[in-house]
């Protein structure tokens, strides 16, 4: 009897809670990134205290596990109220083309976001007349990291173009640096590839490439592959065994001179390695990409058929707000997607990135899902791997073109 009463009471409590509203947020932010997400949830709870927030995090680097779980949930007809996805084609090419997402352009209009988010960014997260996700943060991918003291000792400076880089590379090799450039496992090589390609063909051609206006088999792009091959000749031979952190370590130890990596490396250098910006580690835009900001962003979208749509909309509003972005980003080590963020909350590196964000040309990153759907990026990894072994530029370009056709990027 007692048990039955308790059960009834428990049921009553849960039903009343659901009446007050519920919100399920699906992400892969656990561990180091957990506190940043918690800050957002705290902000949400302060504004909507009656809503129960369910933080459905599936841990695993870059969301590999979360994306598989998400797929089963979406295909099974129980989508989360709002889920994390890399902003751009990774979401558009997977879920938007399948007709599974709600258009958020109304929300962008009513919140006035079209004015505070850079135009280039809004273009990247839009397609077919819709805008599909709310970016919470921005990372930059085209940054070249180095060790200022070591560069001084070797008597070189950070190169400004890729041909200059190759010259610096041979200088360093002559001085006994076996691998002037350090790369890590496959995705970091793709990461390097996009910086080389943008630095070779330019930002405008990069955009054309993903708009299907420039073919991969174009001599310019093939030339980019050739440059990439030469750049890889400057790199360490044990790449596929290194994580990006281990690759960054070689900059600090002076085993290698340069590393092209996203700006999460700044967080690693300052937080984990306790180094000072421009003292223990230095940075410059990747060669040939000065005045270009290759961006990637985490964003949240609204799947069709979300159970708590109203609460999810409120959540998205918090994400796009100035308060939300400034609560989240200093903890995450990224910068706000909005151009009006409070820079006093950020560290030295982030401030320089935020300044570039406002003034530079913004293009999307390939390896981090902004310009191509996952089906392309994943298979492109194999092309890069084969290219690094064979150095056959024309072959790699032809394969990439076929992939682009298959993924619907090019005709």
């Amino acid at each position: 009897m007692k048990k039955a009463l308790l059960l009834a009471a428990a049921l009553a409590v849960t039903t009343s809670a659901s009446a007050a509203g519920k919100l399920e947020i699906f992400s892969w932010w656990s561990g180091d990134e957990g506190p940043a997400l918690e800050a957002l949830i705290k902000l949400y709870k302060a504004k909507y205290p009656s809503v129960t927030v369910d933080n459905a995090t599936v841990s695993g680097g870059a969301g590999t596990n979360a994306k598989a779980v998400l797929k089963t949930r979406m295909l099974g007809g129980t989508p989360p109220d709002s889920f994390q996805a890399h902003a751009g084609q990774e979401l558009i090419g997977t879920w938007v083309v399948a007709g599974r997402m709600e258009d958020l352009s109304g929300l962008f209009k009513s919140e006035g976001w079209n004015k505070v988010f850079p135009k280039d960014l809004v273009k990247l997260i839009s397609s077919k007349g819709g805008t599909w996700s709310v970016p919470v943060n921005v990372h930059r991918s085209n940054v070249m990291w180095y060790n200022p003291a070591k560069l001084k000792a070797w008597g070189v400076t950070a190169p400004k173009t890729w041909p200059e880089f190759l010259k610096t590379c041979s200088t360093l090799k002559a001085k006994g640096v076996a691998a002037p450039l350090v790369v890590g496992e496959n995705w970091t090589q793709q990461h390097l590839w996009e910086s080389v390609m943008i630095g070779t063909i330019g930002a405008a051609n990069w955009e054309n490439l993903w708009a299907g206006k420039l073919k991969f088999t174009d001599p310019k792009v093939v030339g980019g592959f050739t440059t990439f091959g030469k750049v890889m000749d400057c790199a360490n031979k044990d790449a596929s065994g290194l994580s990006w952190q281990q690759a960054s370590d070689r900059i600090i130890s002076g085993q290698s001179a340069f590393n092209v990596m996203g700006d999460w490396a700044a967080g690693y250098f300052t937080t984990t390695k306790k180094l000072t910006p421009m003292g223990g580690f230095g940075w410059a835009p990747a060669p040939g990409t000065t005045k270009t900001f290759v961006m990637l962003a985490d964003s949240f979208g609204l799947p069709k058929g979300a159970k708590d749509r109203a609460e999810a909309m409120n959540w998205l509003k918090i994400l796009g707000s100035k308060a939300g972005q400034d609560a989240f980003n200093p903890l995450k080590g990224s910068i706000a997607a909005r151009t009006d963020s409070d820079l006093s909350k950020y560290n030295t590196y982030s401030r320089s990135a935020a300044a570039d964000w406002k003034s530079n040309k913004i293009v999307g990153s390939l390896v981090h899902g902004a310009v191509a759907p996952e089906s392309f990026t994943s298979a492109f990894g194999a092309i890069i791997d084969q290219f690094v072994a064979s150095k056959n530029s024309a072959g790699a370009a032809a394969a990439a073109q076929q992939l682009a056709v298959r993924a619907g990027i090019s005709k």
Partner: protein
Amino acid sequence: MKGLSKDRLWSIAVLTPSIILIAVFVYGFIARSVYVSMTDWGNDPAQALALNPIIRWVGFTNYQDLFTGFLQGRFRQELVSTIFFTLFFILGCLGLGLGLALILDRNPRGEGLWRTIFLFPMSLSFIVTGTIWRWMLQPEGGVNQAPTLFGGQSGTFAWLSSTDAILKFDWNKLPLLTASVVGLVLVVMAVRAARSGDRTRTLVAGACAALLFLWALFIGPNVKLLPAPELHGFNLALIGIIIAAVWQMSGYTMALYLAGLRGIPEELREAAKVDGANDLGMYQHVIFPLLAPITLSAMIVLGHISLKIFDLVYAMAGPDNIATSVPALNMYLTSFRQNQFALGAAIGTILLILVAFVIVPYLASQFRTEEGHA
């Protein structure tokens, strides 16, 4: 109605649920996968994850793509890698397991302890083994640092990250190679049949072999699977993975062999000794032949493990490392990262066929012997 005794009814009632479950969840799903592999599900990104995807029947296109498609070089390399991996993995496990078993069979001191130590790796999962060996095979880690303990130079071999390959061959020569291998087998069969005096068999096998060789000589060289030569071989990065896999599974073969050795009656050994066999002769003519069935079962078990291997490679070299990739890994990535469900199903079907090549003859021989006993 002699068949429908109470016992029979009971057994039917008890077995029916599992028969239905297996029919649906094993054979039904196999059939479904094979069906999906012959459609275009996922080739169009807009249809891959749609609510009601439009799926068209395309027959064997996906298979053709895998074996001859320009973009599927990775899969072909994986097939070649799997063959090499299986070969070296089985040889390693059998050799090491037999060696350990022979040593333990001589009743060394602390035999129980040794047995536990050698068998212990098997109790770990491949993920754990893979993670540990990944650390040890880091370019500047464990194994490469070992020589410095004895004052030597640290090694430089890139265990898991090497991109070099040996024993390379052109994929275009595959029909030729296959025809030659099958032809050789047929020749052996013909010779055997001739020895045992089976004339029709000799003639059929001989004629087939001759036909194959003729084809291989005159038509084979003109068959072009791919527009350009594509070299595949044994990637040196696989060596690290083979070592880890052998480390994990050789305890199992040791246990099998040890049981086999202990099962050989003492009388046989004594009889051999009385007949004047020395140690070597006894092993060669008495013990090893008696261990042959154990070798066969070990080969079957190890063979299907190695064809399906996924977790060890994922843990050791990551999913995106072509030099060490295997078909199971590619199947996962193709289906669940690229959303190419049909292509993934095709890879799965090929894996199933490969495993069936290993398992079915074994099962057939098992059933035959069981019937023989009954």
